């Protein structure tokens, strides 16, 4: 397969703005920032239209569109349009004290169909791959038949399925035999890692947003068709890689926090810096993330979505209440406090540089001369009354500037894992109003087009995959075990549409099993590769 056109479109849906870029090779041909619509889809299609208008590129020249979207996260948070999920746990007798959906918010539980679609049956494995209980296939059939009228999708979770997945796979086959080939099934072992309850939650949430993702992709596909755009459609994942749209409908949960991941990829695109910190400054908050070999560093913590604890991989981010609209409290002589309040969307009514009464981070940037020209992408000027910002007493400006600087420096420092200075990349619409000289930074970059970094990051279509293995190093060679896991990850990258020949290992993690005799450990490998055929074509 090859791409029909040379141009690529990247779209990044944010809370306030949906950004879009159209690139040719490494060059930005057009960019746009439109208001995000409540249905997300309308705004996304508008961005495509604006990019086509601005650039004048012919529809047939578009080879690829990548979308970083919030459809699924919004659906879970708003409990809207969710699928009814048949929940199957293979574990008994293990786990009966804590059944599925324990601790879930009531409204979300009900939106998914609630407890009546939950079944616990004998099954699961121990860490060494020995079964806890054999699978009773007749019982599975019976339970599936009982649920089939009330559910749209299934989520299957077996104990230690990341180590041995065949029971989960067998149950999926039975569901298909009983309900039909097309029924969406989420297997927990494909979604996340060891820790049964969080993995089960992740799988259930994934199963609940399959139709949401399907509808979004179909809407965008039909919009593309009606505009004669015959391009490859990719969906951005939260590890910074992309997935083909038809596969994305199986794993919609991985679009969670894909926006910050896209920003990190964009920063890499713009600077070619692959290791360092990313500071993404928005209107009300700043996200600080870490790049490791060009990809977002993964968080070690559990991730809560819509009130449910999951263990899906997600970028390691710290959000601080610091953006262009953040209010600086003063007593008329000196700066007292930085935030956390913000003028939010009323910057142009309330901030000093627009003639308003409040002193904001934006005004300090203007007073410092850091922001002195309009950004092409915003339809409004950077300040209508710059003299008002300049009239803020110098003492206040300097003190506020130091507060902003220290807040960012402290957060970068907290996220560092070694003491050396590191490159820092400033991106986002608000990045032009924060200090460029930062302690702890070996060099600070603020590249052109950084206000659409996320959309740019989406245009880099790289495929990633993972594999996991539990081994006992007392009777296995460590390197051999790692190599085996790498091979498993390469097989997975091929399944995801990547080229296994060009796969590069991004990360190897070894987690020892403590308080156990022997030398058991979990090995987890992440690889990336190019999309198969992406460089072959062109017109």
């Amino acid at each position, binding site marked *: 397969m090859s791409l029909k056109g040379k141009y690529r479109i990247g779209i990044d849906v944010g809370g306030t703005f949906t950004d879009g870029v159209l690139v040719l090779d490494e060059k930005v041909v057009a960019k746009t920032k439109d208001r995000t619509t409540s249905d997300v889809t309308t705004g996304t299609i508008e961005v495509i239209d604006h990019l086509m208008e601005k650039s004048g590129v012919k529809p047939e020249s578009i080879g690829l569109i990548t979308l970083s979207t919030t459809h699924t996260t919004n659906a879970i948070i708003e409990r809207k349009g969710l699928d009814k999920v048949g929940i199957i746990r293979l*574990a*008994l*007798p*293990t*786990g*009966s*004290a*804590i*059944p599925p959906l*324990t*601790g879930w918010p009531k409204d979300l539980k009900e939106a998914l169909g609630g407890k009546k679609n939950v079944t616990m049956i004998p099954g*699961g494995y*121990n*860490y*060494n791959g*020995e079964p*806890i209980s054999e699978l009773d296939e007749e019982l599975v059939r019976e339970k599936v038949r009982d649920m089939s009228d009330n559910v749209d999708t299934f989520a299957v979770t077996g*104990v*230690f399925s990341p180590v041995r997945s065949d029971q989960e796979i067998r149950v999926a086959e039975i569901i298909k035999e009983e309900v039909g080939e097309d029924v969406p099934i989420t297997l927990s072992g494909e979604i996340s890692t*060891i*820790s*049964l*309850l*969080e993995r089960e939650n992740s799988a259930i949430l994934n199963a609940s947003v399959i139709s949401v993702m399907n509808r979004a992709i179909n809407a965008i596909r039909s919009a593309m068709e009606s505009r004669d755009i015959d391009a490859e459609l990719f969906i951005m994942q939260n590890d910074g890689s992309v997935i083909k749209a038809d596969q994305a409908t199986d794993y919609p949960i991985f679009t969670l926090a894909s926006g910050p991941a896209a920003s990190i990829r964009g920063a890499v695109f713009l600077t070619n810096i692959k290791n360092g910190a990313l500071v993404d400054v928005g209107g009300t908050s700043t996200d600080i993330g870490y790049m490791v070999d060009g990809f977002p560093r993964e968080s*070690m*913590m*559990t991730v*809560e979505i819509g009130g449910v*604890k999951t263990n899906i991989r997600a970028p390691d981010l710290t959000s601080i209440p610091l953006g262009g609209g953040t209010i600086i409290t003063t007593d008329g002589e000196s700066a007292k406090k930085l935030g956390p309040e913000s003028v939010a969307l009323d910057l142009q009514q309330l901030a000093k540089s627009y003639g308003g009464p409040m002193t904001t981070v934006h005004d300090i940037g203007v007073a410092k001369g850091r922001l002195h020209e309009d950004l092409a992408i915003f339809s409004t000027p950077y300040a209508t009354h710059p003299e008002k910002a300049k009239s803020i007493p110098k003492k206040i400006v300097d003190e506020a500037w130091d507060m902003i600087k220290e807040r960012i420096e402290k957060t970068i*420092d907290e996220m560092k*894992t*070694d*003491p050396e200075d590191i490159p820092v990349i400033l991106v986002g619409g608000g990045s032009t109003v924060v200090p460029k000289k930062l302690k702890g930074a070996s060099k600070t970059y603020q590249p052109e087009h950084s206000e659409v970094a996320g959309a740019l990051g989406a245009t880099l279509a790289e495929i990633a995959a993972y594999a996991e293995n539990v081994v006992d190093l007392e009777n296995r060679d460590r390197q051999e075990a790692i190599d085996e896991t790498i091979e498993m990850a390469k097989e997975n990258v091929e399944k995801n549409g990547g080229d296994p020949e060009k796969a590069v290992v991004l990360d190897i*993690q*070894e*987690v*020892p*099993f*403590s*308080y*156990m*005799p*022997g030398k058991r450990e*979990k090995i987890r490998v992440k690889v990336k590769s190019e999309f198969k055929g992406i460089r072959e074509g062109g017109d």
Partner: protein
Amino acid sequence: MTREYEKKDPYKIIDEWDISESDYQVIDGRAIEEITLGANILATGGGGDPEIGLKWAKNVLDEDKDIVMVQPEVIPDDIQLACAATLGAPIVLTEKPPAKENTKKIFYEMERYLGRSIEATFPIECGGVNSPIGYAVGGELGLPVIDVDGMNRAFPELQMTTFATQGVPATPVVTIDDHHHCCVVDMGEKNKVAEDIVRNIAMKYGGISWIGCYPMTGKELKETGVLHSQSLAWNLGKTVMEARRRHDDPIESILEFLKSDRGMGGLIYSREKSWISTVILVLKQHMDFPWVG
């Protein structure tokens, strides 16, 4: 004798002991969260992720079972107690949450071995997963939970308790798996040998076992346990939650509560790579306590 444990009623038991209302407290969902949080501060994050135990205890409460905590001074000297806990690899526990009937099986076998009925229980440690498990057990079996433990923090091995150091043996230990395979280990005073054997049994069970241990009398518990450690954990947890509600500094509130000083402050620069994640995890748990609502 039946093969089943007969669930008891904690209120009936404390009625028989004839104790006043000020000597016991009813434990609800919020109390469990506060005790677990406080216990984890005392254990400085040790003892495994408390999440599984916390969820279990809250489920027990959701099923309208009663959890009652009783002050140690007022319990009769001659009653029989024992505690239940999980022993093995914490990472396996995250994959294998408990089966509901485990505690009943443990206490059934323990009573059978001892030849007498157990009237109350207590958490073995203060911190980690075994802290809330002590309460889940009390609720499942209908036994009062006594305001003591054997460590006042979390330690890695069975024999590392104040009970053992003061002469109460850890055994007989009843150790079971989710299939209710059962071994009873009785080693007399040889607590370390018992630990080694019990841990090996846990391996054979698939990495995690459920144990009943430290059977003792009311008198022995009063003499060898860390008294009021549960109340200490509870008050500590309350203090931190209160500080959070007021948006105060939780660490300052802990220091004030414990009338203590900040021992040290600093930044961890680097450790061996495999350790970094652990260190960050521990630090973040202390800052954030993400399992609390």
